[in-house]
């Protein structure tokens, strides 16, 4: 997180030196985007704060993690991600919360990647553009991409092997 502020600060300084007007515009865009998404954020936090009380962390971690069921966890997370549909602005903070509750990195990767890549809910739209068969193959390939990514994450973070 410190890196984030260092990078942000450096970029902001560079931008301000190069063009004050543009920088001001960038800050306005930042504020506007933040205010636009803020209500959705608050509602997500309300929901998550209740759900995580009702479903204790141990239960979440038991089903979505732990070294014993790494394989099934990745599978479940991949399927959940394929079905669910919410914007990354909500998804990644949620992943952060899950991560802090002890859900493994590989499971987070399977969920977030399939969430972005595979769209069961958006399939009717995709079909309109690509035709059913192409859309279907694209989604199946995407699901496997998500699984492969999460395995690499699992290996590099020392969660399996």
């Amino acid at each position: 997180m410190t890196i984030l502020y260092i990078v942000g600060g450096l970029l902001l300084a560079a931008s301000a030196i190069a063009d004050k007007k543009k920088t001001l515009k960038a800050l306005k865009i930042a504020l506007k985007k933040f205010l636009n998404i803020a209500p959705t954020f608050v509602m997500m936090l309300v929901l998550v704060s209740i759900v995580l009380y009702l479903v204790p962390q141990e239960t979440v971690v038991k089903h979505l993690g732990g070294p014993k069921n790494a394989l099934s966890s990745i599978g479940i997370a991949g399927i959940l991600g394929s079905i669910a549909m919410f914007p990354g602005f909500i998804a990644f903070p949620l992943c952060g919360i899950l991560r802090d509750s002890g859900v493994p990195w590989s499971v987070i990767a399977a969920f977030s990647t399939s969430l972005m890549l595979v769209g069961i809910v958006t399939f009717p739209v995709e079909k309109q553009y690509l035709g059913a068969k192409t859309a279907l193959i694209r989604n199946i390939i995407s699901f496997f991409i998500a699984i492969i990514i999460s395995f690499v994450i699992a290996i590099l973070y020392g969660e399996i092997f």
Partner: protein
Amino acid sequence: MKKKLNLLLFGLYTVFIIISLFLSFQPGKEIGKNFISFALTMLKVLPAAFIIIGLFEVWIKKETIEKHLGNKSSIKAYFWVILLASTTVGGMYVAFPVAAVLYRKGARLAVIFAYLTASAVFRIPMAIFEASFLGLKFTLIRFAVALPLIVISSEILGYIIKKSADKNKLFADESI
């Protein structure tokens, strides 16, 4: 309407938490504690993330990238199409119409599929968010693994579709 409903729900939630505090109602206190701790974590990250996103929108021009897409060379086309994908705002609902435009402008099938997949993985504002909440290492690994997979799978998909009758169904509806 939805706004009002959200406001009402949030109001009820706040009242519930406050009453729980006064009555020492344990579940309510726990839920309130969850909310505060999650909100604080987010407020620490969000300002920096949104400032970087704002700077990105101001400084990167999409037109430059689109101009380069006519490139005949595959590697160059991939480079620019992935760059274009990373600047896509608004998710798949924007990505499909853009892909349709690419198709009608004569881009290669594999390149178009790469655009669709890449726009789901490499969108810069999302990437900033991802790195903010899950760490730069996580994001970089995900990108490094996804890149070759996207190129390979797009080539395969392009190859399959080019030979099949389904090619005629691609972006067939001119109205969307």
